[in-house]
């Protein structure tokens, strides 16, 4: 499973938060700093495992906790077509 950004999404940061805009739908979404960090990591496509390894390391949390917390977030991004999961 590889996770990548949808290139039709425009994103830009205000402070530690990120606004993401879907050109196609004309809708926009906001995320907090963790979400912004994930978006930044996805500049290069990553597998779910690689992403969680990076987050567990950078935020100093267990990989289990990371998997538990990140999965629903990614599911939501994928549902809104902000990221592509293949």
């Amino acid at each position, binding site marked *: 499973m590889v996770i990548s950004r949808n290139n039709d999404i*425009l994103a830009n940061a*205000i402070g530690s938060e990120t606004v993401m805009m879907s050109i196609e739908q004309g809708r926009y979404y906001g995320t907090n700093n963790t979400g912004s960090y994930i978006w930044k990591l996805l500049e290069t496509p990553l597998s779910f495992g690689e992403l969680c390894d990076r987050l567990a390391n950078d935020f100093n949390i267990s990989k289990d906790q990371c998997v538990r917390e990140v999965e629903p977030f990614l599911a939501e991004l994928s549902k809104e077509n902000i990221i592509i999961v293949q």
Partner: protein
Amino acid sequence: MIYKYFSNGLNIQSEIAFPELIEFNHEIDDVFIRFGSVPDKIDNTVFEGPFRQISQNDFLLNIKGVAKYFVKGGSEVIIDPCEGAEENTVRLYILSTIFGYLLHKNNILALHASSIVSNNEAIVFAGPSGSGKSTLALGLYKRGYEVINDDISSVYFDKNEVPHVYPGYKHLKLWANSLESYGYRPINFGKIRAGLEKYSYPVSRLNSSIETIPLKAVFFLELSNLSLNITEITDLRIYNFIQKNTFRYGLVKQIGKHNFHFQNSMKLAKQIKFFSIERPLEMKIIDFIDIVSEKLNTI
């Protein structure tokens, strides 16, 4: 007769007079406004609504009993007035919807806002119709601040991407009760159009310059039932406020300018200060002006 103006970043040549705009004898037009016949339909539309049709390059606005307006290639505006239409009403749609279209089409970020100058920097007051933008601008004007825009305030990014405001308008459009709250008699002013209790109040500047003014802060006005509240906004609600207060934001979507609008909004969001002002309905205008002008000295 041909008139030449500048407003909100556009050099305008027009067969119709706009005393509200800044007279400016430019060389090259961005926009040319003339009378002519306008078709009922345009081809290859990407959007069709009850009053407007939009194609890749053109825009048709059809206001029953007033006029048909056709914008070709984002620069040529043709007006086809209906028989017996009042001239001021015909002009009003140029200054609102057509201007909105021209600005977005030319990738200019246009806010629904009035603006003034404080210590050589522009302060923008944005808000929905009826939120008191023009009334506030008048109050500050009477205290010696220059007014550079009413209703539409457009942002210019210089070569270093620093945001400025284009001057654009030298009248304030005010409801009769706003004029009365300052002790004016509305009858002494011209109506912006027949049948509407809204009047045009001229605001003069020492030099009617078209020079852009560095933008310091945007205030988003809202009426409220609670007490007066001025809060700085620093998180991503800024984007929400910019979008909500973009002049004719619906057009941005319809003409497919999301990308430019988003990039310009975010460029702005990162560089200046934003505040929301909740103003209680019952607050006296004089007290409100006191508080705002005090605030302008501290930001």
